[in-house]
């Protein structure tokens, strides 16, 4: 059963007087990966940050239009409530350096003061680390600091941390841009595996990555949504000339 998880309606974003996003309309369905691709500075990261309202950390931002997370108006919610429902993975792996692997996974509970029994936490940790394909590598060192892990492992730890909160959608902001090719392919395999259970919105500047892992692709250029559709279709028969030029490497 597919249903709409995130609905974006006539959405625009501004930094000061600068319009970053122009009238974006987008639907993402459950258990699918939607890739946002486009050249640097096109607004794809801004769009993903508007979904969990992280853009509000920067003063002088303004948005118009609507976004709905499963029929709830995102901009009518409290940001802290909203962000607990949305997982986010960043460009650079950012585990909490003073916490163990175990504590990193349940950081969303610990930092928010949500108390559960020890065995419930144990279950969440195991489930989340298995979900991010890290369990086998770290099950004997759960109480070591997360920063001892390699870059790719740290990124999977960050994915586990997001999964632990049972997010309704997982935002991936160029999750492999700081990783080596081997870790990158591990993360890509993980994304394909994860979509059985989670809906994902993936920002990437890597065309091949979008082709490899996504079901739907949105091509954003200069703040405009140029084309949006099934990845296969877009990569074989792009409707817009700009999409074709981007895909064939004429710019971007």
């Amino acid at each position, binding site marked *: 059963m597919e249903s709409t998880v995130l609905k974006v309606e006539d959405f625009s974003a501004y930094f000061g007087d600068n319009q970053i996003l122009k009238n974006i309309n987008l639907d993402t369905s459950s258990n699918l990966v939607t890739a946002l691709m486009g050249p640097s500075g096109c607004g794809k990261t801004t769009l993903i940050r508007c979904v969990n309202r992280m853009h509000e950390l920067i003063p002088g931002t303004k948005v118009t239009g609507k976004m709905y997370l499963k029929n709830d108006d995102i901009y009518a919610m409290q940001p*802290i409530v909203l962000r607990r429902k949305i997982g986010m993975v960043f460009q650079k792996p950012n585990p*909490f350096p003073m916490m163990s692997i175990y504590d990193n996974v349940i950081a969303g509970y610990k930092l928010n003061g949500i108390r559960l029994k020890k065995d419930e936490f144990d279950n969440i940790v195991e489930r989340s680390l298995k979900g991010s394909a890290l369990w086998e590598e770290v099950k004997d060192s759960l109480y070591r600091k997360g920063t001892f892990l390699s870059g790719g492992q740290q990124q999977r730890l960050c994915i586990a*941390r997001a999964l632990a909160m049972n997010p309704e959608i997982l935002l991936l902001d160029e999750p492999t841009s700081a990783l080596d090719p081997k870790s990158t392919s591990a993360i890509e395999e993980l994304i394909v595996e994860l979509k059985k259970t989670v809906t994902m919105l993936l920002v990437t500047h890597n065309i091949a990555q979008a082709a490899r892992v996504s079901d739907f692709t949105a091509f954003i250029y200069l703040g405009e949504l140029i084309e949006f559709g099934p990845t296969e279709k877009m990569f074989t028969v792009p409707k817009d000339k700009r999409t074709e030029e981007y895909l064939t490497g004429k710019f971007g």
Partner: protein
Amino acid sequence: MKDHTAVRMIKDKAFRVIVILLACFSMLPLLLILYYITRNGIAVINWEFLTQLPRPIGETGGGIFNAVIGTGMLIVLSSILSIPFGITAGIYLSEKSEGKIANIVRLCVVVLQGTPSIVIGIVAYIWVVAPFHSFSALSGGVALSIMMLPVIIKATEETLKLMPYHLKEASLALGVPYYKTILKVILPTGLSGILTGILLSVARITGETAPLLFTAFGNQFMNWNLFKPIDSLPYRIFYYAMSPYPEWHTFAWGASFILVVLVLAFNLIARGVAVKWKVQF
């Protein structure tokens, strides 16, 4: 041509020797201080000296127990008073790098750091001693806490500014409120730097005499009451050294030895904390 090279080599060598010599020379004052204090002070250090109270003029023997306890109380008191304000102000400055208030606060911190300690003593006198009509441990603690403030604020600000921004993002993206992000993520990660700052500020105030002269005042008896005058190591050294009695002079050396060891210990612990608890990203 060959001569030139030889002359240059000699100049090069001479320069190196001079630099090393002058660098070593700058250590000389500290070594001499340690030497004199140890030579003159170590003889009187024994269990009695550390655990007995000063005796009245005419009696021999006695110790500096009340001064050791007094210094300890002053350190605890001034830490309790200054750490909350210092860390809070440091957080504010690190979070707000620009803005009118932040810049004013930053300027005040610099000026406060350069304010002569005797002036701070006078302020504490006016604030605490005058209203209570009595010299007191509390007023000494207030004076010393004002001296600790700029060091703690600067240390906190500098440490927290080094925290990577993505750490804060990670926490906020989990739906953690801003204040919890600061208190539970940013502060613990910067703990070693903040603790180092606190220990260095303690090391700095442990030997302060001037602000205590008309606040804590000094007391040859044991006192646990915060509202009564209290003894301290620097004051005891001052008092003994100014006296005409040879035995008290050796006591002054002994007390100096203890004080220097204390300050040295705080500095070494601060270094240890900075190295050992350093957080890796």
